[in-house]
């Protein structure tokens, strides 16, 4: 039973991991803690819901759209509301992103109402049985997608010029500017990329949890905690932190009580901060 629960926890954890990854990316490039990150996930979920469930489009058409739209929204928000406050007091930036969160989540609520929607599994078929553990195909798809995406992102950041610009800006904005990098443009693109990752996570998550307009903030907090547990600023830390939160969530839900899920997530955060404040995989700047 333990492994069964852990496996299904990993599937949710993958989605948390990706959201945390995008969240950390914005922090690294722009020094902005983006409270609206969860809303990018919600946008993707509703795009997928409308196109796939309501209009009946196939998934291969829906997925690019569900990734592209949050990316556009991410790019636009950076240009319009984030850029003027970059470098301002941390409280000002936090307030702006909270304002953004309110606007985006309420827009979703106006369009789709407050009720939850169910989303069909990404892949049909009977669950597979691996060494006595029953694994739904859905979970395998999610895990495989996350691995592919993580490798792709690693390649992007190490080999392409965009990735190198992104890393240069996150290491030292001033020096990056001196090297002829358009810092503002890079930050905006970083926003778009992280929103796109969040969008991808949204599509993966949609069949696992019910889609609703109020999901953004809880998802953000989960991924925020995942990022801190992993070591804030570290990409690998964000991924592993997300997986841990997903597994912990499931185990607590079964062995203790589903009412105490969040409590244990927060306790994990507090324990990590007390005994290993740099996180499990410390980030070196």
């Amino acid at each position, binding site marked *: 039973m333990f492994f069964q629960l852990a496996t299904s926890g990993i599937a949710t954890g993958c989605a948390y991991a990706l959201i945390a990854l995008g969240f950390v990316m914005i*922090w690294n490039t722009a020094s902005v*803690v983006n409270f609206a990150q969860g809303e990018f996930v919600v946008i993707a979920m509703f795009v997928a819901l409308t196109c796939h469930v309501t209009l009946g489009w196939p998934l291969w058409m829906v997925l690019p759209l569900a990734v592209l739209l949050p990316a556009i929204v991410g790019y636009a928000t950076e240009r319009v*509301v984030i850029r*003027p*406050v970059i470098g*301002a*007091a*941390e*409280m*000002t930036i*936090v*307030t*702006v992103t*909270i*304002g*953004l*969160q*309110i*606007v985006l989540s*309420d*827009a979703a*609520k*106006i369009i789709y109402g407050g009720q939850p929607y169910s989303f069909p599994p990404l892949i049909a078929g009977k669950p597979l049985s691996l060494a006595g553990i029953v694994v739904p195909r859905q979970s395998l798809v999610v895990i495989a997608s996350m691995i592919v995406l993580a490798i792709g992102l690693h390649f992007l950041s190490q080999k392409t010029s965009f990735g190198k610009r992104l890393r240069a800006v996150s290491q030292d904005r001033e020096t990056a500017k001196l090297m002829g990098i358009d810092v503002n443009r890079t930050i905006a693109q970083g926003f778009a990329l992280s929103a796109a990752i969040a969008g991808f996570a949204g599509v993966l998550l949609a069949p696992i949890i019910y889609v609703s307009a109020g999901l953004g*903030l809880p998802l953000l*907090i989960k991924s*925020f*905690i995942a990022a*801190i547990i992993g070591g*804030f600023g570290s990409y690998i830390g964000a991924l592993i932190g997300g997986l841990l939160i997903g597994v912990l969530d499931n185990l607590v839900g079964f062995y203790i*009580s589903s*009412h*105490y899920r*969040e*409590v244990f997530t*927060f*306790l994990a*955060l*507090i324990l990590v*901060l007390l005994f290993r*404040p740099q996180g499990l995989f410390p980030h070196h700047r």
Partner: protein
Amino acid sequence: MGRLNPLGLAVIIAAIVIPIFLSEYALHLMIMVVIFAILTLSLNLISGYGGLISLGHAGFFLIGSYTSALLSVYQGWPFWLSAPMAILLTATSGLLLGFPALRWSGHFLAVITIAFGSIAQLLSINWVFLTNGIDGVAPILRPYLPGIDLTSNLNYYYFVLICLAFIVYLMIRLVASGFGRALKAIKDDETAAACMGIDVRITKVSAFVISAALAGFAGALYAHYIRFLNPDSFSLDVSIRIFMMMIIGGTGSIAGSILGSFVVYVLPEVLRPLQDYYYLIWGVIVIVVMLFLPGGLISLGSVVRARLAERKDRADQKIVSTEAQP
């Protein structure tokens, strides 16, 4: 904050006179504004003066409310005993949260305080034996004051207003004291403050304790006003709302905190005819204020004055330059 300007005096007179003519619903809003003003002032102490972000103030508010309510409903304690007990217990929880604040600041502290507020709310939902869970606690009696009937909302309004006045006075004294200046010095530069002989640890933890105690007091005032408590009233949204009140009004300003509470509490009610759109428009307003008035609404006067002076300056220069030409 030394002397009272005419505008401040006008606001005080309005706060005393106008409620007499208000409807029952508007009076309810005013009482809530005053209670939230106390909460915002308490947050302002740690965030505005101390520079520590807290998104868990609803947690203190909850502990204060529930302590006073449970003692009065199940133990029969009068308000005058249960409220101090609420203050004591929230101050203790402030002590607990003050220690993490020594080590972390910025967004780390933000998420720690979110965790604190959320744990408090989740426990109040799940510890049914203590809090009666989502069914809530009722009926909580209004405080008893000989000769004055506090079950009348108008009288209760004046009661909370006097409490607010007392806390404002306390704040003014606190900010001007050595403690207040030490707190501001730490916000500006922690190392420099420590070099000047300020005990950073004690100052930060005391700020948290005082802030929590005030929020607990606001909680007691709320519980005995609303007379029915339910965990719903203490969600993360409430913490964010208190944070917004401080920021929108003007961080680090007493008048700003009160103005912020008024605007943030009353504006959604004014926008209510817009129905579904009001929260969205509220979010836009928050962003616009931050982009154009990062010092909050309270800085509006000085910003406008600075702009006018600048324009006048430029106009003067133009006159000088045209006169200089023969």
